C-alpha cells in the first residue's frame, strides 16, 4: 500500500491552528507575512504605538503590603498625599502638580486638535500638565491646558519663542522610547494645510525628520543650549531633558551635568504616531530597568529629588504609577494610555477598523491618519467622532482612577505620601524583573547580578 502523501497533524489542534500543523518558531505566519510584505513593497513597515511584544514590566513586581511588621493607613481619613514640585533646581517658577501623572508630548499633527484639547482640559481639571509635541503649540492646547510643557525637538517644527515663553516649562527632547536615535515622522495624509503651515512643509508630503538637534550635539553643547533657553525665558521655567531609555545611567548623569531641572526617561514601551516597526521593537530597554538605573544615577550624584525624574513608556494603571514611584521616579507620564482613555482601540465604528485590516484591541494604525475614533487623524469627519468635552471627561476619570489606585497601594504599604514608596516595598515575580528592578525575587533575598558587589 503506497504511503499517504498527505501530512498528518503533529500537534494538538488549537483555536489558532485547528488542523494542528507543525509550527515554526523562527518563521511563524506573522514573520512570513512580513517577509512577503517587504518583498512586495521594498520599504520598512511603519506603524504607530509602542513595542507590542511581551517584555519584563511592572506586572512582574508586587507590593509587600502591611501585616504585622508594617501598619497600613486608613483610606480617605488618613491622607496619602500625591503632589509633586518640578523644577526647583534653577527655575524661578517651579511647577506644582497635584498628581504625579502628566500627559506626555504628542504632536498636533499626529493627534487631532480635538484630542489635544480633551487632554488639556482633563489635565487642567486634575491639576497636572500636558506637553506639546513635534509640530509646535496650538492655541487650543494653550487655552485648554493650565500647565503646558513646551518641547524643543531636533526638527524645530513650529518652534516659536513667544509660544515657549507662554508655557510653564520647557522639555528638550533628545529622544523617545519608541525610537531612541530616531527623529519624528508624519506621513502625507496627515500633513494637511494646517499641519503643513505650522511645520513650514509642503502639504501632503511624507515628513522626513532630523534625528539630531541642528545647533548642538553632545552634553557639553547641550549645557550651552539649556543656558540659552534660560536666557530667552529669563530663567523662569523649569527645563526638562527627555531621553529614550538606552544607556540610562550615563544619559541621566549627563542631563544633570548639562543643567537640567528634570529628566524624562521613556522606556521602549513608549509609543509614537509613526515609525519603523523595526525601530520600535528592537531599540531601547524596557521601562522597568530604566527607572531604577535613572534613580541610581541621580542618587550617585546626590541629585535624587533635587533633579526630578519623570518616567514614561507603558504606564497603564495606578499599580504602574506606584511601582515607578517606589523605584525612584518623582512622577510618570502617559501617552498611549491617555489615547486609550480618549477612545483609541475602543469597540466603536468596527467597519472602519476592518477597512484598515485590523480590529479594536489590535489597532496600531495611527500612521494612516484614518483613526476610526478621531484621535490620531486630521480628517474632519473622523475627528468629529471625538467630542472634546466627553473625551476630557473620560481622561479625567481615568487619571483620577489611577491616582486612587496608587494611593490605595501606598496606604497599604503605610505611606502618607506617594513619594515615600521605596524599592523595599516591592518583590519580584521573575528573575528578569528582580535583576532589572534590583528587587529581591519574592520569598528570597536574591537579587541576580548583585552577588559579587
Amino acid at each position: 500500500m503506497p504511503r499517504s502523501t498527505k501530512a498528518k497533524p503533529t500537534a494538538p489542534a488549537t483555536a489558532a491552528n485547528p488542523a494542528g500543523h507543525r509550527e515554526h518558531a523562527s518563521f511563524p505566519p506573522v514573520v512570513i507575512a512580513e517577509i512577503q510584505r517587504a518583498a512586495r513593497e521594498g520599504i520598512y513597515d511603519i506603524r504607530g504605538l509602542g513595542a507590542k511584544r511581551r517584555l519584563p514590566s511592572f506586572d512582574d513586581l508586587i507590593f509587600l503590603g502591611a501585616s504585622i511588621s508594617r501598619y497600613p493607613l486608613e483610606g480617605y481619613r488618613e491622607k496619602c498625599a500625591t503632589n509633586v514640585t518640578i523644577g526647583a533646581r534653577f527655575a524661578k517658577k517651579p511647577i506644582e502638580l497635584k498628581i504625579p501623572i502628566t500627559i506626555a508630548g504628542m504632536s498636533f499633527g499626529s493627534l487631532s486638535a480635538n484630542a489635544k484639547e480633551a487632554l488639556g482640559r482633563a489635565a487642567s481639571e486634575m491639576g497636572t500638565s500636558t506637553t506639546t509635541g513635534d509640530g509646535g503649540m496650538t492655541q487650543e492646547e494653550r487655552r485648554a491646558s493650565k500647565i503646558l510643557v513646551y518641547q524643543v525637538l531636533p526638527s524645530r517644527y513650529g518652534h516659536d519663542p513667544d509660544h515657549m515663553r507662554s508655557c510653564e516649562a520647557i522639555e528638550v527632547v533628545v529622544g523617545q522610547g519608541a525610537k531612541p536615535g530616531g527623529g519624528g515622522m508624519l506621513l502625507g495624509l496627515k500633513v494637511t494645510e494646517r499641519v503643513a503651515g505650522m511645520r513650514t512643509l509642503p502639504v501632503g508630503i511624507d515628513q522626513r525628520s532630523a534625528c539630531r538637534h541642528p545647533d548642538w550635539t553632545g552634553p557639553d553643547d547641550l549645557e550651552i543650549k539649556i543656558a540659552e533657553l534660560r536666557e530667552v525665558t529669563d530663567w523662569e521655567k523649569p527645563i526638562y531633558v527627555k531621553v529614550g531609555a538606552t544607556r540610562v545611567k550615563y544619559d541621566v548623569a549627563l542631563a544633570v551635568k548639562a543643567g537640567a531641572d528634570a529628566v524624562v526617561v521613556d522606556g521602549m514601551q513608549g509609543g509614537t504616531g509613526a515609525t519603523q516597526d523595526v525601530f520600535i521593537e528592537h531599540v531601547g530597554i524596557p521601562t522597568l530597568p530604566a527607572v531604577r538605573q535613572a534613580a541610581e544615577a541621580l542618587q550617585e550624584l546626590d541629585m535624587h529629588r533635587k533633579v526630578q525624574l519623570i518616567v514614561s513608556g507603558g504606564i497603564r494603571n495606578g499599580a504602574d504609577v506606584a511601582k515607578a514611584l517606589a523605584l525612584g521616579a518623582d512622577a510618570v507620564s502617559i501617552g498611549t494610555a491617555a489615547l486609550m482613555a480618549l477612545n483609541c482601540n475602543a469597540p466603536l465604528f468596527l467597519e472602519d477598523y476592518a477597512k484598515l485590516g485590523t480590529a479594536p484591541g489590535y489597532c496600531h494604525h495611527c500612521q494612516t491618519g484614518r483613526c476610526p475614533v478621531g484621535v490620531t487623524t486630521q480628517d474632519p469627519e473622523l475627528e468629529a467622532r471625538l467630542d472634546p468635552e466627553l473625551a476630557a471627561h473620560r481622561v479625567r476619570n481615568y487619571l483620577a482612577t489611577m491616582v486612587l489606585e496608587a494611593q490605595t497601594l501606598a496606604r497599604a504599604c503605610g505611606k502618607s505620601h506617594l513619594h515615600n514608596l521605596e524599592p523595599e516595598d516591592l518583590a519580584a515575580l521573575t528573575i528578569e524583573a528582580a535583576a532589572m528592578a534590583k528587587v529581591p525575587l519574592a520569598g528570597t533575598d536574591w537579587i541576580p547580578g548583585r552577588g559579587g558587589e
Partner: protein
Amino acid sequence: MIEVDVESLGVRALNERLHRLPRDTNERLWKITNPKGAHALAAGLDRPLSIEIEGHVGYYCGGMNKQAEITINGHAGPGLAENIMSGVVRVKGNASQSAAASGRGGLVVIGGDASSRCGISMKGVDIVVGGSVGHMSAFMAQAGHLVVCGNAGAHLGDSIYEAVIYVGGEVESLGSDCIEKPMTDEHRSKLEQLLASAGLRVQAARFRRFGSARRLYNFKVDHAAQY
C-alpha cells in the same frame, strides 16, 4: 546710545534688561563691549532695538531674535541667530556652525565665512554670506533663501525642501535631492534684492540657483539609496 560692558554686568543681567524694556521704549540704541566669546548674548529679544556688539561672541548670539537689529563687529560662535523670527542679525567676521539654524524669518548677514551647516533646517529666514559656507549647509532647508557669494562645501542642500540657494562660486558637491535649477529673471531680481539688503556690492550675474528635485517627498523604494 547706551553702552554696556557685558563682562562686568553679566549676560543674564543684560538680557533681562533688554527683555524688560517697555514695548515703546526710546532706549533703542545699544553698544555692548567686551563680549569675549560669551554665549546667548542678546538672545530672545523682542523689541525694535539697534544693538552693536564690539568683539567676538560665543554660541547662540541673537538666538530666537524678534524685531531687533544686531550687529557683531567680530566673529560669532555656533548657532548664530538660531530660530530667528524677524529682525536682522549681522556679523562682520565669520560665523561658526549652524548659523541661522531653523530660522523662520528675518535676515542674517555674514560678512566673512560661515562654517558647516549654515542654514540647517531653515524655515523662512534669508541668509546672505559674503564669503563661503562649510559642508552640509542648507541641510533639510525647508523655506527661505541662502545666498553664498563664495563657495559652498560638500553636500549642499542635502534633503532640501522648498528653500532656494544661490551660489556665486564653486559648489564642492550637492546633497540628496538637491539639484541645479535655471536662473530666471524672477530669481535674479530676488537675488539682487537679497544682496542689496545685505549691503553687498556683488554682481548677481555669476550666481547659480539650487533647489529640491522633490523626489523624496513621498517614500518610494526606488529612492531608498538617497535616504
